[in-house]
């Protein structure tokens, strides 16, 4: 494998050199988001991408004075798509994790996430490990919540992983799931909808030191540009204004 490594390093260097010149020439940044994770990213009735991530992406592009194109991409393939150069950045509420850092780079955070359990109102749910024994717990596949369940509860509980958060909500509503583990902010939004009536947060939030940032390819100079832009919009109040559109509390 050593030769392979050397060759791929050379190929990578060549690709990055080529990639950055191409990006400079076009000066158009393609940004991927998922489009199924309200209120952070979703689609309106016209099929346009909306949400906190999309607003932040637009604000950052305005700050950098860059032309941007925002595209929707399924969560499962969102990192492979970045590596395959289908787009240049992911602004899709993605957490910085060790595993992801092995394959992509992250900018500074643009918000911080906590996890929370959701279950039917009035139902007594003990969220300790012993209390969750034998329960069916759901989360979205390839998320921090899904990983948290696999790492901490796989031995005692029945874990079900969903393609989208929406499908997990559907199964919580149908009663197939006893409890749902989710990022807290999107769940906060869902609990206020018609479908989310009759459900509530259970127990304490789980703080997993989860920083949400923009993913870019390894070594891409876009990182510094994004970092400067994030700093700028936090300082000039643009961030606060976007935050207030979605949550009555700061999520930075």
């Amino acid at each position: 494998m050593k030769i392979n490594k050397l060759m791929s390093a050379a190929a990578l260097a060549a690709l990055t050199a080529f990639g950055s010149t191409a990006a400079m020439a076009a000066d158009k940044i393609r940004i991927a988001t998922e489009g199924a994770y309200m209120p952070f990213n979703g689609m309106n009735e016209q099929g346009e991408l909306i949400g906190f991530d999309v607003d932040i992406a637009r604000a950052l592009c305005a700050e950098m004075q860059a032309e941007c194109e925002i595209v929707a991409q399924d969560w499962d393939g969102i990192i492979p798509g970045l590596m395959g150069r289908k787009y240049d950045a992911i602004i899709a509420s993605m957490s910085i994790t060790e595993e992801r850092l092995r394959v992509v780079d992250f900018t500074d955070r643009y918000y911080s996430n906590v996890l929370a359990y959701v279950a039917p109102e009035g139902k007594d749910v003990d969220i300790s490990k012993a209390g969750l024994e034998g329960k069916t717990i759901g989360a979205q596949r390839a998320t921090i919540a899904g990983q948290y369940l696999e790492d901490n509860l796989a031995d005692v509980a029945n874990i079900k992983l969903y393609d989208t958060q929406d499908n997990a909500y559907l199964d919580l509503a149908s009663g197939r799931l006893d409890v749902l583990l989710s990022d807290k902010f999107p769940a906060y939004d869902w609990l206020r909808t018609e479908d989310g009536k009759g459900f509530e947060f259970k127990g304490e939030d789980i703080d997993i030191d989860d920083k949400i940032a923009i993913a870019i390819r390894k070594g891409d100079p876009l990182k510094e540009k994004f970092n400067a832009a994030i700093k700028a919009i936090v300082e000039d109040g643009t961030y606060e204004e976007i935050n207030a559109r979605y949550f009555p509390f700061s999520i930075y």
Partner: protein
Amino acid sequence: MNWNWDVIVEYFPRLIDGVWVTLELIFLSGLFGLMLAVPLALMRASQSRWLRLLPFGYIFFFRGTPLLVQIFLIYYGASQFDAVRESVLWPILREPYWCAIIAFTLNTAAYSAELIRGAIQAIPKGELEAADAFGMSRWLKIRRIVLPRAFGIVLPAYGNELILMLKSSSLASTITLLDITGAARTIIARTYTPLEIFATAGVLYLTIAAIMIGCFRLLEMRLNRHQHYKMPTELSAVDPRLSD
């Protein structure tokens, strides 16, 4: 490109767990599907116009809509109704496993019914006439002549249908089942090695398909052995040109 063998070795047992789920899914739905398809095919091939029309709507729907849509309708759709959630069927319908089997069964039964109908109608008329000449009753004729002959004729096409189903079964991963594809996607969510894991999954599907193809070839050779023509060797002794 760094090909990572370790990740394949480490997660191979989980993919093998997925193989069993996939095999169970196609075996059970194949079995139930066939049980449903035979009476439907007999109805479709019947002389009576009403019997012929009865299964038409069902077959039309299941052949005309994508399997993914059918799975979602059964799994996420049905559970939206309180009536379903309070019914005696809920313990079955709440399980993604049974929802997948129901969807696959109904889907494959619709296709197989049409395949078997074609086979029934392809039985040489003379054989049916012979059965009638013997004075066989309708059911005896179906049992002894129509179904065994149709079974032999339909085999190659039915083997094809089962292989299509093997591949369609990957859609079960969309309703949280950990079949080969579901296991692969869950592993990739953690390791970010889509190439290695999907390639391994592909090899597992290929292996299953190869075994299925082999079984059907054997079955065909055995059941349709009377149809295979082999030139007698004596002919070439008479005139060597005949062996060319």
